[in-house]
């Protein structure tokens, strides 16, 4: 299958005053298209840093990061912003919706960076809202939605521009179990139906159980990659 994610020998450290703190230590990960990867590990292990590199929010000190067919570690900031707009969707733990905008307008945001007409944007947004099952809540502002619904709006926003890769940082960290299951089932469906490749950072082993692959990071080092043995949620998809 086609490689969607190619991370080779990546090193990343941060400056903290006079000290240099190593975060990722010669990390290599390869992911095929439409896989659903869970990145687990303890706090401070480097999993969010890895996610930021994959999402083009940060660049490594050394190594190669190729995502969705493009090498992004050598791109300028502006080029990475353009690349993010067309290739990656982001889902955050706290949804990060804009409170004064309706769900529909929040989902439309990534399309504002494109040259799509208003009619084309409407078609895309309506489709994304339908995909996450919130077409009837399009006019509601975030405060009028539950946490699970807000996260589904965030997923619709991440999907609306048809990105090849979806990066999710603790997407169920702020949700109750039922809402978390609904969001994870949605993510698993997106990968299984060949819509997006998904990389998800999570603390929760149960959430990781929805992924098709899992890697564990500890102290900036990738432990033995493993294939998730059972995918109970997918049985219901």
């Amino acid at each position, binding site marked *: 299958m086609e490689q969607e994610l190619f991370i080779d020998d990546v090193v990343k450290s941060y400056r903290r005053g006079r000290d240099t703190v190593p975060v990722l230590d010669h990390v290599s990960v390869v992911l095929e298209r439409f896989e659903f990867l869970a990145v687990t590990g303890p706090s401070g292990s480097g999993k969010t840093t890895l996610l930021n590199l994959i999402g083009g929010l*940060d660049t490594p000190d050394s190594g190669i990061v190729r995502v969705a067919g493009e090498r992004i570690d050598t791109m300028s900031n502006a080029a990475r912003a353009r690349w993010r707009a067309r290739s990656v969707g982001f889902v955050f733990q706290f949804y990060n919706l804009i409170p004064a905008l309706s769900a529909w307008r929040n989902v439309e945001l990534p399309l504002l960076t494109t040259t799509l007409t208003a009619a084309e944007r409407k078609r895309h947004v309506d489709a994304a809202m339908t995909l996450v099952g919130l077409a009837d809540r399009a006019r509601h502002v975030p405060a009028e939605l539950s946490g699970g619904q807000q996260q589904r709006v965030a997923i619709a926003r991440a999907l609306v521009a048809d990105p090849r890769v979806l990066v999710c940082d603790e997407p169920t960290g702020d949700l109750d179990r039922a809402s978390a299951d609904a969001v994870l089932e949605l993510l698993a469906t997106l990968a299984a139906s060949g819509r997006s490749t998904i990389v998800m950072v999570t603390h929760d082993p149960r959430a990781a159980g929805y992924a098709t692959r899992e890697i564990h990071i500890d102290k900036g080092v990738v432990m033995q990659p493993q294939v998730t043995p059972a995918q109970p949620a997918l049985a219901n998809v």
Partner: protein
Amino acid sequence: MKYVPLLWAGVCRKKMRVLLTMLSVMVAFLLFGLLSGVSTAFENAGQNDSLSRLISRSRVSYTEPLPLNYRNQIAALPGVDSVSFAVWFGGYFRDPKDYIVSFAVEPEAYFRLYPDLRISPAALAEFVRDRGTAVIGAALAEKYRWHVGDEVPVKSAIWPRKDGGAAWPLRIVGIFDDQRDPTQRRLMFLHYDYFDDMRTFGTGTVGWFITHVTDPTRADAVSEAIDTRFRNSGAETKTASEQEDTAAFIRQRGDISLITRAILASVFFSLLFLTANTVMQTRREAMPQTAVLKTIGFSSTTVFALALAETSVYFVVAAAVGLAIAAVVFPSLRDYVNLPGLPLRDIAAGIGLAVLAALLTSLPGALAAQRLGVIDALRSRD
């Protein structure tokens, strides 16, 4: 247009704060509009005054009187058509705060010198005939609801009566108008002969002479001739055209324009600092949202433009509302400042200043948004 909902969402983030900021900007620009209009009116003061009329005052001081007998000597000079005079009466009605701009004049000669003062011939004839009368401008009549036939007990802040009375009872016999210079509509004229007979001091003197010249191009020569005529006398004169005299009189009271602009400058600097601080606070609060926009692919330039537009728009809108109110209110000052409306020059200056102030106050926040590090901003939100 596609960014309008996003801009609106930014404006609505803290509605009360935006509303209060807009109110302060609006009031500042209302003040700006009115004060600059008044300042322009002062700068233009005297422009309606005639170049063919000369004013001769005491060289020593505005308050120093001149002998009445100068009148015939001035009238005899070459180039002089006619001469009259006036005395500052310093009248007020009931309370010294309710001052009336009032002069004692020679009725017939004075109104001949000022043909723009429109009064009915019958009223003027009655004014000339009866020494205990007065004529008033239409605005003054309206202010105190005075009518022809009313006897009004006007008092003077300067001139006590010989009989010890404080009030100068005057019967109003006419109301005049001046379409060219509305400030004239606030004046009152009383009869010099009556005034001169009844005052306790200064008898036989006047405040200033008004000379009408036959040829305005020779006004300077006539001015010079008048001043030369009285040089080395006990009461030397200083003669200037009416325009110059008005401007000099206003200058004596201080540089109104400079004072006005100093007030405006202090208001604006305070406003700039306060608004810039509010805008910076707003931008700090908007940091997570800005980070999200950058994360999903908004370029730094777009984020900068959005942040700049978000605060500039409401600043400029509030300023425009303030200027609009000033433009609506300004004509009601027509009796005090000789301008029909807020000058376009001042409106344009206000808009220019609003745009500049909006950019200055928005720029630091917009630059901060442009330079925002996405990862740190997202981490601070989490």
